């Protein structure tokens, strides 16, 4: 090999090889980290990626998924051109059409539905992606429909509801300053490594870590000073037992509670029924360990819980999450460095140190007299508590099937994944009943096959976007490559739609650059070109570090102005099945335990996947090629199941067939399965009404099931 060949093979960026580095961000595990990427470009193509040194979230490193960015953006199944349906719905036959024609069809069909059935009959549905959400929400509202629904109906909003009902605002544990962390149902090292790194940094500085998790996670086995392995769904009982001790032994922060908390008496009375022995009986965790965990939590200050998102994926999940947060209030650990801190969102769920006009951007177009949005009557707490007025998508299947309180006739889908929905085939059947479906996506998904018009979207590498980062950073990317196919970015598509629909909304019709600068006009940034030219994130002039204690001083944005240990909104709603207190209750479905002896937990992250979006990335798929269920070795032995055997997971509604992965990551009696696989979609076996009545969230992480060994035919 010549020297040049060696350089080329090693992909060394230099004038000789013609390989240059351009900066962009990874949008695979959106929206949290969105790590900085150095894209190695040769002849207009990405030939390799690396993390950007000095970037606020990742400083040069990447996670498993981000490292596979190249294959993600060049996935074989990317949509390549706008298409219109040529065969029957679901058949997957399409013909290419031009962007102009596609827009004309969309405008005509959507306006037709609006004219015949009202604007509410059109639902604007968004999948996992976050970066274009304010635009899509404004599109829906300007169109006149209140039905803007996102994947957050199953992901993050329940947490927001829990935080909001207690503290009046979304909050986050301040991991950087904590000296002790009680990680509760969170495996930070895998699900979001910057968070994991913060936990490990705390440990490295001599801090203590308690892990409470039904799964024996990486964090539990490697880093925990104390590990509690509760039965799935028993967490509230543990939290209550801790609260009881704190109150009875007068170890809670009485001054704080007196001054800032509402509903203490009721709450104290309720938790007084949770003795350590009762908690042990419910959770299977030795009483001594519960006390030890509490001691560690109280004896270190500042300390914080780190509640995992998955806690809310049980049908009593909202209460479980609140029960855990209550410990923060009780111990006076709120709005101080190293405890739970109020969080701000500047743009698309992330914070750049200043308040933007994002909320106003879409809420100013809220259709005042529209009929109620999807899910709003079924889930009154959702409707009353949330400021941003999304619909609760978990009521969508029912709404589509029953057509009440009014029929839904058209869907505008952006990155929608049917496998997010319980009994997912019913979602696709619902789509097929629509008069018109337009679907935008990066990839040719199953939902695409059910659309009338298909619009190809871009990845973060091909677009320009603003992203905010903790630490008051703001980043305006430039495209690292031109579109791989005849695709456009989502906001461009929204802008085209707004224009085609001839909406009375000049701002939205003006495109990304103008609208984002409008939303961020509070930043103090004058020269946006300079921001765009910066290779690394910048600080906006108006960005300010939050001063701890501000919230305590200014009062909480709850109806009572206090931290609500009993939720006043629920008191007002007054429905008997919705308790204002964070009660403990089983999150099981009512399947017969004799027939369905296992408890299924689904959706906990594996390193090589986020939902379904990386299952078709060969590098990532090769790391764990088969959909597989984690079964405890003791259970496996009892059932005669060996590593790699084929097994069936059976629920009351359906079953899927997967491989067995024998591992004590699963507790005895529990099984654990990752989601989003086309050939083994775990959500297809969860009953459609297995929902938390408070939040509408699906019980992804607790369902009775049975494991059957399938004899492989030779």
């Amino acid at each position, binding site marked *: 090999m010549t020297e040049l060949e060696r350089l080329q093979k*090693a992909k*060394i960026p230099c004038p000789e090889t013609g390989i240059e580095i351009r900066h962009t961000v990874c949008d695979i595990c959106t929206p949290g980290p969105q790590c900085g990427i150095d894209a190695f470009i040769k002849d207009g193509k990405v030939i390799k990626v690396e993390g950007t040194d000095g970037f606020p979230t990742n400083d040069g490193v*990447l996670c*498993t998924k981000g490292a596979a960015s190249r294959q993600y953006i060049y996935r074989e199944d990317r949509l390549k051109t706008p298409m219109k349906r040529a065969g029957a719905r679901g058949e997957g036959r399409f013909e290419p059409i031009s962007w102009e024609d596609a827009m004309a069809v969309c405008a005509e069909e959507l306006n037709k539905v609006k004219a015949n059935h009202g604007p509410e009959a059109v639902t604007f549905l968004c999948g996992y992606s976050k970066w274009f959400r304010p635009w899509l929400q404004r599109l829906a509202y300007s169109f006149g429909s209140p039905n803007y629904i996102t994947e957050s109906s199953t992901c993050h909003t329940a947490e927001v509801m829990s935080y909001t009902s207690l503290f009046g605002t979304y909050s986050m544990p301040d991991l950087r300053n904590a000296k002790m962390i009680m990680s509760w149902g969170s495996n930070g090292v895998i699900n979001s490594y910057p968070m*994991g790194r913060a936990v490990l940094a705390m440990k490295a500085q001599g801090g203590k870590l308690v892990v409470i998790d039904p799964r024996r996670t990486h964090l539990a086995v490697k880093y925990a000073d104390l590990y509690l392995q509760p039965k799935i769904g028993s967490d509230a009982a543990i939290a209550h037992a801790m609260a009881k001790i704190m109150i009875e032994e007068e170890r809670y922060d009485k001054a704080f509670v007196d001054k800032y908390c509402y509903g203490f008496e009721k709450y104290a009375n309720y938790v007084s029924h949770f003795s350590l022995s009762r908690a042990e009986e419910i959770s299977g965790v030795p009483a001594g360990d519960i006390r030890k965990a509490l001691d560690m939590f109280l004896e270190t200050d500042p300390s914080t819980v780190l509640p995992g998102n998955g806690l809310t994926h049980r049908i009593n999940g909202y209460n479980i999450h609140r029960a855990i947060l209550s410990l923060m209030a009780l111990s006076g650990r709120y709005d101080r460095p190293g405890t739970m801190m109020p969080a701000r969102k500047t743009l698309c769920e992330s914070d750049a140190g200043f308040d933007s006009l994002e909320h106003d951007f879409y809420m100013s177009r809220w259709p005042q007299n529209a009929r109620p949005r999807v899910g709003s009557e079924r889930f009154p707490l959702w409707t009353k508590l949330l400021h941003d007025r999304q619909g609760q998508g978990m009521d969508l299947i029912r709404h589509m099937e029953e057509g009440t309180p009014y029929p839904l006739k058209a869907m505008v889908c952006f990155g929608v994944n049917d496998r997010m929905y319980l009994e997912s085939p019913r979602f696709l059947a619902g789509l097929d009943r629509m008069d018109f479906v337009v679907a935008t996506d990066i990839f040719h998904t199953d939902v695409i096959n059910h659309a009338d018009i298909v619009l190809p979207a871009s990845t973060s590498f091909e677009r320009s976007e603003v992203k905010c980062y903790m630490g008051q950073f703001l980043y305006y990317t430039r495209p690292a490559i031109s579109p791989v196919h005849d695709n456009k970015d989502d906001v461009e598509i929204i802008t085209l739609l707004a224009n085609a629909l001839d909406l009375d909304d000049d701002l939205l019709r003006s495109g990304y650059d103008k609208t984002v600068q409008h939303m961020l006009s509070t930043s103090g940034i004058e020269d946006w070109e300079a921001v765009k030219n910066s290779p690394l994130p910048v600080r906006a002039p108006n960005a300010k570090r939050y001063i701890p204690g501000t919230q305590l001083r200014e009062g909480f944005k709850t109806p009572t102005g206090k931290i609500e240990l009993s939720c006043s909104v629920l008191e007002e709603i007054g429905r008997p099945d919705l308790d204002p207190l964070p009660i403990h209750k089983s999150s099981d479905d009512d399947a017969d335990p004799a027939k369905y002896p296992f408890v299924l937990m689904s959706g906990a992250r594996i*390193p090589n996947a986020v939902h379904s979006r990386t299952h078709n990335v060969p590098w990532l798929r090769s790391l764990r090629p088969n959909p597989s269920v984690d079964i405890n070795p003791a259970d496996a032995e009892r059932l005669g199941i060996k590593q790699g055997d084929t097994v069936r997971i059976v629920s009351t509604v359906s079953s899927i067939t997967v491989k067995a992965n024998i591992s004590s990551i699963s507790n005895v009696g529990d099984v654990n399965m990752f989601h989003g696989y086309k050939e083994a979609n775990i959500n297809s076996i969860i009953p459609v009404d297995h929902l938390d009545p408070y939040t509408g969230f699906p019980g992804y992480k607790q369902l009775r099931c049975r494991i059957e060994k399938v004899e492989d035919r030779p």
Partner: protein
Amino acid sequence: MKYVFVLDESKCVACSACAVACMDQNDIDPLAGDIPFRAAFVDEQGPVEDPKFTFLSIACMHCENAPCMIACPTGCLKKDPETGFTVFDNTNCIGCHSCAMACPFAQPCFNDNSGKMTKCDGCVERVKRGMQPACVKVCPFGALSLVSESEYQELMRTDARKKISYKILD
């Protein structure tokens, strides 16, 4: 300067980011049955009530008296004098797999259809230009590092934590 790859077992979570970075760096195509030159995995042992987990990332150890090099009948494998990495030129490789049987770590691969040996070359060209190996650079937990031989000796002396280098079998 001679280098040693070191894995700090206490930091590795077997996330395989390193394996993916290796695939990106070396254009590995799993659809063609190819595998990366680095692999991460979890090993679980001991009683069910109190299992012991080990998290590992393994690639070529660039052994000192590289058994693969000694075994190769055609002299494909060599020690790079500058870095000490076990590098290769597979022009004359006959695909006999002798190197594979000699290697204690199952490292030599026969990735493409040519039947010729490939393996981790320590990202030698990057290292020679002051860059880190792709797998080391990506690791989100700083578990993997490339250290000079003297730093390595120092590390072994001062740091009692379990580290893996080519002495892994001992």
